[in-house]
């Protein structure tokens, strides 16, 4: 297909889609309206189970099964990356040269790394209270480890990142989520039902029944997944080279 014909096709299909979407938008309930039946019920259910962050309650209690699906997508995506980016027979590893980094930049990264790691853990731990949770905190914690690559050296990162441990951690935390769900079945209720643990006091770290447990499992899963992902990409971009066939 010539580019010109393709552009015409895109414009025609796009304008049709645009007309349909705009018509749909005009029929949606107005922006900022006062009618949110699901939202109001979710807030009531969350408060009844003494979870201060309603969003965490929706994620890890009322729609915990949905989050299991999201987690499987994440797990499958990481698995796909690991398979796609493995070292093949016609490639070899070359040691990257150590990087020269300005002293203030190096000092800053070494100073900020523990702070960022701690912030990540804080965001995970306070997931059921203040904005945050396993998804966000896991990414922050995993990103903070890669400050070592950015500010110091690839080899320094490799030393604190035994990749096997993170792969095992990824699998373990994924199964921890399922096991917590199955505990509900064994206790005589439903899969992932939040009836197992006492709900605790409102607005404390242990409130909300199984919400903190599932939240922590997701936090670990996301952190390990991102570390494994970035490790594969760094391997490909920095270390692995093709054997030149001359």
């Amino acid at each position, binding site marked *: 297909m010539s580019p010109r014909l393709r552009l015409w096709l895109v414009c025609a299909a796009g304008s049709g889609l645009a007309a349909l979407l705009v018509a749909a938008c005009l029929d949606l309930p107005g922006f900022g309206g006062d009618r949110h039946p699901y939202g109001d019920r979710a807030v009531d259910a969350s408060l009844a189970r003494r979870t201060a962050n309603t969003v965490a309650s929706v994620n890890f209690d009322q729609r915990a099964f949905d989050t299991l699906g999201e987690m499987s997508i994440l797990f499958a995506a990481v698995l796909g990356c690991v398979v796609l980016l493995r070292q093949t027979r016609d490639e070899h590893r070359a040691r990257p*040269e150590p990087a*020269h*980094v300005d002293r203030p930049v190096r000092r800053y*990264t070494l100073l*900020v790394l523990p702070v960022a790691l701690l912030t990540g853990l804080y*965001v995970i731990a306070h997931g059921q209270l*203040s904005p945050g949770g396993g998804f966000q905190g896991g990414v922050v914690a995993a990103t*903070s480890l890669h*400050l070592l690559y950015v500010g110091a050296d*690839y080899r320094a990162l490799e030393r604190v990142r035994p990749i096997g441990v993170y792969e095992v951690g990824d699998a373990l935390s994924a199964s921890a989520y399922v096991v917590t769900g199955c505990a509900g079945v064994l206790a005589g209720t439903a899969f992932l039902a939040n009836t197992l643990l006492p709900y605790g006091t409102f607005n404390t770290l242990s409130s909300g029944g199984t919400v903190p447990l599932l939240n922590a499992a997701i936090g670990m899963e996301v952190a390990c997944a991102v570390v494994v992902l970035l490790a594969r990409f760094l391997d490909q971009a920095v270390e692995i080279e093709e054997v030149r066939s001359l």
Partner: protein
Amino acid sequence: MNGWLLAAAVVLAGGVGATLWGVATGPLRRRVVAQNLSSALACPILLLLSQGYDRPSYVDLALVLALLGPVGTLVFARLLADELAGDPPRAWGATWAAAGVGAGVVLALCAATAPGRATVKLLLTGALLIGGNVVASRALAGGFRGVRRG
């Protein structure tokens, strides 16, 4: 009329709008500087919003941005070191202006809130914001000169 929200809207429309223009046009060295400034300006906006909506828990967003914004710029500085080496970007005027905005916002918020844990968090955010952006600017201006490969 909420003064905090007004200030946030002004910084958003003026500051972040300008950095968007900067990142959309011009040579690469101007674009990386604009990206750095956008995170340096968004952090005070988030602090102002937290105060304007009267929600202290929104400060977490500013804290995370103050930590990860400079990390993003360092990623660009590190991986684009070759491209930037020939003509390193130097924008100390804009960097210090953004740092001044950040410092002003943090001090104003400290004055408006009662002293306590919230003040410590604000000051930590401010220190990370200003320190991070100055270091990121430094890195862009040739902090990774020795990096060839790796």
